[in-house]
């Protein structure tokens, strides 16, 4: 259910940049700290794109590994744990997130084909 709402937000961003052109590819960058399940997002996209009049738009996902800067030991580290944000070197919770919160549409591929009109109400 979460990914469905996210796909609707993605479609809104795409529409505002596609300027009515046919959308072939949508590229989305997702940080590891967003609670997004890629398979679920892709599945939801296959439904949402039809309702958003971009039925042929392929979703390409680019994932970003999380990284933190530890205020205790001063080191920057990549986070490999799926749950914990503790500094991997000294186990401190006093960390600043350097990467991993990204959630953006980076680019589109568009062409000047007529958009296919589907599910038009």
């Amino acid at each position, binding site marked *: 259910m979460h990914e469905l709402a996210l796909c609707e*937000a993605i479609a809104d*961003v795409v529409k505002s940049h596609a300027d009515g052109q046919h959308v072939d590819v949508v590229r989305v960058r997702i940080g590891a*700290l*967003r*609670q997004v399940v890629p398979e679920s997002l892709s599945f939801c996209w296959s439904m949402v794109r039809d309702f958003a009049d971009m039925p042929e738009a392929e979703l390409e996902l680019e994932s970003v590994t999380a990284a933190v800067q530890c205020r205790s030991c001063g080191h920057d580290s990549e986070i490999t744990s799926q749950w914990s*944000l503790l500094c991997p070197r000294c186990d401190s919770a006093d960390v600043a997130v350097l990467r991993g919160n990204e959630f953006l549409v980076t680019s589109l591929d568009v062409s000047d084909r007529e958009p296919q009109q589907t599910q038009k109400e």
Partner: protein
Amino acid sequence: MGRFHRHDDGTVHDHDHGDHDHDHGDHDHDHGDHSGYRTGSQRVDVLEAIFAENDARAGANREAFESNGVRALNLMSSPGSGKTTILSATLDELGGDVAVGVIEGDIATDLDATKLAGRGAQISLLNTGNGFGGECHLDAPMVTRALRGLELPGLDLVVIENVGNLVCPAEFDVGEHAKAMVYSVTEGDDKPLKYPVMFRAVDVVLLNKIDLVPYLDVDVENYVTRVREVNPTATILPVSARTGAGMDAWFDWLRRFAAGAPTD
């Protein structure tokens, strides 16, 4: 922010961003061979946050609160943790000295709004059931709609009771000044690690149902430790909405918050 510009003659400028260096050289963008149409694809840089529209609306909500001297709290939790019971007790306690408005997010019913009625607060019910099976969270545009049901100039504090869910509400700024969550000791002490986005985002955690600790195989200290692992700075308040234990600390926190004073 990378935007493409389309001119009257149909040309499109595709800005090149230095930080965006993906080389999709092996990706054939010319789909002309199977489409039957005349042209291939053109790359459009976007680099727009997917929540940009929501965040803009959240900013407008925040301005509406601030221009009326109102402080807004986003109250979140899993279903059944005791948000509405805590809110009922809170309205009874604060009713005399803090003017409270409640935005009540609920997928389909008015059950919670009914429980909160008659306690001196303005209530604006927000059913989210128009989405696919009901939205699982409140977003900023929904709160904008709900604000029409409140008379902000007469209020000090607005509590936005989000839909019960530990995942989605954490993602959406609705224009609040702080986020609070109710986390009950019946949920298991592993939840901060399983839902880190929510637990990291909040300013205060109400650890509810501590009256049940003698009947459960749990240790309140473990709950506090696990919250600290993902959020070292949040205020953690062990409470029982049923017996009233610990609730004074919560009321004090909320009074300070409503007055715009430091809360920690």
